[in-house]
């Protein structure tokens, strides 16, 4: 049963990240996802100190606010003439430093482990259960992640067309009257929520992996956005299952193993994707040359 919960958690993380990651990749904001996942740390600590408990809601609010603040600051610096990559770098490292300092100052009150912040511990998920009306409702993380996943799914399917146009051609989106900035912040808000919900189980860096790697793999496999979304979710789920197996075999961090598996899947797609794979394209070139020679 515990394995089931762990795999389910991993799959939920992978699915919600996979959905959002596609848009991040298309809008060339992969590193913004990285920045958000680091910068939510002070939000979590402040929410922790303020509410005095590990309740999910204040944490989601605190981290969501910090995530949006990050996006806002990056935008602000960019508007004031700082290159966007430097703006991202300065913002997230500053916020992360504040977070680390807060943790080390309030180390007695804050039951947060910095290592855990960075790479999470998904193996503890099944024991942190949520009791409601005296009934054991299963792990709290699963509920939190499930909620965030459903929210992302709902918003993306409701505004699919708007998100799509914004992702491919923001200028055209603005021209046809789509509030581009609103959708930008909506997407970033969802990314922050997902980051926080995944935080305890997989940690900051591995959220980035789940956000970017499955989506990039899917991007190598298809040219259609809706297919890409589906592939991305499927690849995420496959990696969480295989990653769990790898982790049990090696007796290592589950989240790290899941990331390693996504990396391997990406490598496979990079080499053997039917249209964009390195090996496949080399093969095509060879057969083409061969055809030419026989035709001559």
């Amino acid at each position, binding site marked *: 049963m515990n394995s089931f919960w762990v795999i389910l958690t991993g799959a939920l993380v992978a699915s919600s990240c996979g959905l959002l990651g596609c848009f991040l990749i298309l809008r060339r904001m*992969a590193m913004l996802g990285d920045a958000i996942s680091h910068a939510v740390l002070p939000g979590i600590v402040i929410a922790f100190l303020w509410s005095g408990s590990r309740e999910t809601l204040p944490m989601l609010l605190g981290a969501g606010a910090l995530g949006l603040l990050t996006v806002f600051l990056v935008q602000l610096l960019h508007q004031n003439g*700082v290159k966007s990559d*430097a703006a991202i770098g300065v913002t997230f490292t500053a916020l992360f430093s504040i977070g680390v300092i807060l943790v080390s100052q309030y180390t007695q009150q804050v039951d947060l482990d910095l290592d855990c912040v960075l790479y999470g511990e998904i193996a503890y998920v099944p024991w942190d259960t949520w009791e409601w009306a005296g009934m054991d409702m299963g792990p709290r993380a699963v509920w939190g992640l499930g909620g965030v996943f459903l929210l992302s799914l709902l918003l993306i399917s409701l505004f699919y067309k708007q998100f799509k146009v914004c992702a491919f051609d923001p200028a055209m989106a603005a021209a046809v009257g789509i509030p581009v900035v609103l959708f930008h912040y909506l997407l970033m808000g969802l990314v922050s929520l997902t980051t926080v919900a995944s935080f305890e189980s997989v940690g900051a860096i591995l959220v980035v992996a789940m956000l970017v790697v499955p989506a990039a793999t899917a991007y190598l496999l298809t040219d259609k956005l809706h297919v890409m979304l589906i592939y991305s979710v499927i690849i995420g789920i496959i990696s969480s299952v295989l990653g769990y197996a790898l982790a049990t075999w090696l007796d290592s961090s589950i989240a790290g193993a899941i990331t390693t598996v996504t990396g391997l899947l990406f490598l496979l797609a990079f080499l053997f994707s039917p249209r964009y794979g390195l090996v496949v394209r080399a093969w095509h070139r060879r057969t083409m040359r061969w055809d030419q020679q026989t035709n001559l």
Partner: protein
Amino acid sequence: MNVWQLLQDPNTQWVLAGCILLGVSSGVLGCFAFLRGRSLMGDALAHAALPGVCLAYIVSGSKSIGLFLIGAAIAGLIASYCIAMITKHSRIKEDSALAIVLSVFFGFGIVLLTYIQHSNQGNQSGLDKFLFGQAASLVGDDVVAMIVVSATLLLLTTLLFKEFKLLVFDSGFGRGLGYPMELLDGLLMLLLLVSVVIGLQAVGVVLVAAMLIAPAVTARYWTEKLGIMVVLSGCFGALSGVLGTLFSTQAENLPTGPVIVLAATCFFLFSLVFSPSRGILFRFISFLKLRQKVLQDDVLQALYERMESDHAQMPYQLRRGYTVESLAAKSGKRAASVQQALSALHRLGLVEPAASSPTADSWTFTSAGLKAAYELVLNRRLWDVYLMNEHHYQSLSIDLNQEALTTQLSPSDLEEMLHHLESYNLTPKLTENNMYAGQLQTSKQGGIS
């Protein structure tokens, strides 16, 4: 313990020296990375170093700092090679490639780290220090190694300064000159990697990127010259190192790395606001000044044009003043801002309250003001003519960003344009000379030339 006593402590001296060296070398190399648009590369390289450190431990079984750094450097090299491969051979863009390599390498590093921890071979407690860094644990040997490494870095950067400058600003031109740009790019990446690796121990994986970015961005605010920028950036890095170390020794349980990063961020924020040429404050002030000048010009023009049309109709009733309201209506501004502009112009000696006015609140030009307004209106109307017939004047190569048009024209072109202006009946007709004279003889040449 006060700061002076602290500086006597040899332990603090080592830590301080280490942080200063880190600040200088990453500040200097960060400049090139920043200008090359590779600011986040440092972040990726730092994360990618983790599996290298773990593998070095697994292979050697010892906790030698030197081996760790070599392992980290090799892993970083592989990572930068992967990033280059992914961007070159697939349709994935550089930012996604960075994020992919960063997270996958780090994830793999975590797998190795936990594998080592769980397999319990010997004492592995030093390994996770690399995650967040521990400047306080820097000892003499580390600092000596850092001195050697950063001296080499600085020497190489100085020797190759011109080449790197080419690489950063115009690598295509450099290739044209016959420099091996690919090789130089690789070398720059290698130097960047080394500076990241020596930073790992002090500030850790996550924050080492900040030491590359923040000082460089800060220095960019104060100069336009690469040489000065590199020196400034090194100084900012060193200062952040000093401040961070000193602050973190003042309070209990304050980690050095994050404090150094926050110090660097404070320098950046200060420059962002107060830099004399690019700062927010400066640009806001010059924006306000510009807005005021435009307002004053508009008011001058409104007053001039009111006078001009009255003069055309009733040439003998001049020197009558014009009220704020009528000028506001003419220029389309709010009366309050017109009033403000008029008092500013009055201080400049360009307008004065009309002597023989029926109401107290009415204004007219001084003679200097009339001259200034004439120049202004002429310039603006010439611009109108130029823009209306842009195709006609294309050969003149006018800079649209300059304010004055007349200075950009040769006498014959000016003559032609004035002629053109006349044909629209737009020549400013009010000058000091004809102020009291009879109605101006308007020439009747019609038609557009």
